[in-house]
């Protein structure tokens, strides 16, 4: 099986989707000729021509707004917003339009679009290249929200997203593009070529939306994580010696609640980890669901480890980033409660 970085896996997913379905079109800022600032669409314009893969003006509103119109026509646009931090000009189009067109037209018009965007920190991107805005989308009914944590899932989830009949927000943790990252920024980078999830089938396959995956079996405490935080949680479990069960949520909306409930009922403890800010973050929704469905199994308060409620700083990146030490402390607290 070929080894792929997450970038190559994403490119492979788009390539296969374009090859299988002539209705798939790909566009965004620097996406066409150059192939994207992260190279996720490299070579696609050459292969499929510039009417199926092209550069756009710098207008996220325009990118998503035209994608919605194309989807109404019957195409399947998979567009790129260069950084998740830049998606806000398109927010109205996503929230008020893409998410509701099926509902408000009683299915006459639909919006099968994918909006891809690199998210998260760990690359010294400062407050405009590091954000994790997933909660701004999980609060919107009509959207699906996906955050892959490895090349294999990225490919399978992206193909599933492109084939999905509804709009999907696809957040790509950019720190994972070239290798898994457990928060130990002082250590050498591990490439995907040395990680089993860097083995990616070259052909067409999907990872279903709405299905979580248990990344580490454990009996003491359940860790709910997604994206980069999956690896941070793994490191924290290893370093504390706590037998944590780590669930990679993969899709935040719709959420695989059954997987979460089954695990928390087994372990009796739950720690939620995300890089986004704390207040009204997706962790709040997870914590509420866990207490609602697992209250009588809980032996400790549900813990949350997240980014602080500040803008993502530059110099203080590793003080902000919820690394393995902070996650480890939360695991210990959960065990001691």
């Amino acid at each position, binding site marked *: 099986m070929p080894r792929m970085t997450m970038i190559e896996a994403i490119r492979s997913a788009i390539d296969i989707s374009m090859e299988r379905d002539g209705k798939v079109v790909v566009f965004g800022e620097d996406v066409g000729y150059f192939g994207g600032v992260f190279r996720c669409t490299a070579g696609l314009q050459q292969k499929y021509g510039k009417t199926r893969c092209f550069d756009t003006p710098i207008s996220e509103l325009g990118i998503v707004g035209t994608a919605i*119109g194309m989807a109404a026509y019957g195409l399947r646009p998979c567009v790129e917003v260069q950084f998740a931090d830049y998606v806000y000009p398109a927010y109205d189009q996503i929230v008020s339009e893409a998410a509701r067109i099926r509902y408000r037209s*009683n299915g006459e*018009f639909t919006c099968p679009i994918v909006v891809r965007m690199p998210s998260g920190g760990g690359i010294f991107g400062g407050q405009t290249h590091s954000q994790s805005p997933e909660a701004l989308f999980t609060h919107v009914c*009509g959207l699906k929200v996906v955050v892959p944590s490895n090349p294999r899932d990225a490919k399978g989830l992206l193909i599933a997203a492109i084939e999905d009949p509804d709009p999907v927000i696809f957040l790509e943790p950019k720190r994972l593009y070239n290798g898994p990252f457990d928060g130990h920024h002082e250590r050498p980078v591990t490439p995907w070529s040395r990680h089993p999830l860097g083995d990616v089938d070259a052909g067409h396959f999907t990872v279903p939306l709405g299905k979580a995956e248990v990344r580490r079996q454990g009996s003491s405490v359940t860790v709910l994580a997604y994206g980069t935080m999956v690896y941070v949680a793994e490191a924290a479990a290893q370093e504390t010696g706590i037998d944590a069960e780590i669930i990679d949520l993969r899709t935040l909306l*719709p959420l695989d*609640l059954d997987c979460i409930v089954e695990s928390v009922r087994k372990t009796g403890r739950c720690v939620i980890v995300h890089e986004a800010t704390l207040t009204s973050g997706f962790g709040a929704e997870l914590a509420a669901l866990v207490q609602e469905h697992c209250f009588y199994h809980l032996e400790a308060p549900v813990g949350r480890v997240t980014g602080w409620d500040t803008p993502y700083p530059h110099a203080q990146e590793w003080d902000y980033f919820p690394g393995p030490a902070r996650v480890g402390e939360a695991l210990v607290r959960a065990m001691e409660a």
Partner: protein
Amino acid sequence: MMDDFPPLSLHVPEPEVRPGGTPDFSNVPIPKAGSVPRPPVDVDPRDIRDLAFSIIRVLNREGEAVGPWSGLLSDEALLEGLRHMMTLRAFDARMLMAQRQGKTSFYMQHMGEEAVSCAFRKALEPGDMNFPTYRQAGLLIAGGYPMVDMMNQIFSNEADPLKGRQLPIMYSSKEHGFFSISGNLGTQFVQAVGWAMASAISNDTRIAAGWIGDGSTAESDFHAALVFASTYRAPVVLNIVNNQWAISTFQGIARGGAGTFAARGLGFGIPALRVDGNDYLAVYAVARWAAERARRNLGPTLVEYVTYRVGAHSTSDDPSAYRPKDESEAWPLGDPVIRLKNHLVRRGAWSEERHRQAEAEVMDSVIVAQKEAEKHGTLHSGGKPSVRDMFEGVYAEMPPHLRRQRHQAGV
């Protein structure tokens, strides 16, 4: 040096007249009918920049069709157009009354603007797609969409094609080339460009039409639409309906220092035309010109329809609070229905008596439709969409959390 200048002050535009004043449109230059040339559709946009500052008009004060934009429509087509506008007016009258009777929560009428959507629709072909605002129901009436379905939507009753999910008049009909109305302003303008791009990507022959009001041209969506339409030469007609008023805000607030709304197209290299929006023949002629440009792959056209919103913005609005009560009577472009009627009388194809008779017939047909719709219920009485429908259609397939919520709601 700084001492040489007086302190800065902010300019806030004001309309010429406010309530209590005498309506004054002397600042609106109205060119003579027939005076604006009709360029070939493949004209270089740079050669017709003056069309963004004039007004294309066909019907003159005597009710004659004159000039290079005239001569496109037969008596039969014009009689049909007249009937569409009369139908829309009668429809509005009945639905306004129905709203006052509590049969629905909200309504928006077209009074004075009937020609814009009714005539535009006739310039399109089956399969073309409009991305309308809330004041283009003429696209449906002139497109043959059943009035009873419009009313079912307005009444949010058990036969509402949109299952009671949308505010009244936010229609949707794919079959009739009418994209689901958002209610958020301006969003559809750039979607129309995307639809048109998709048609071009697919080597199709169909074109799109975007619609926006004078006030909403201030939204970023308008700008993005023009950029994308210009860059990719999308086969789209971009329509600005300038009815002078954005709720209580006069058009000068959105227009700013630009001479006209149409002139916004010039910086994008998009041909921009202004047309008498109360002149059915002029609207049709310009719509056909722009549609032909799109269909011949010559790219987008920006059209500003100069018209006047005679009624309130909606049933929640009272215009007497912000403009003179009799301002509409002073509007220099007259009434679109009366102007077309006078033209047809002058052509010998119509008479006052036949007009009165037609008014009664049209009203009868609206009343028949309303009776039929009311059999299916009105907002607060009779049949209504099921509560189950509230949970359906958020996604193609209902996800588990919505199934749980529907169960909780007991449906």
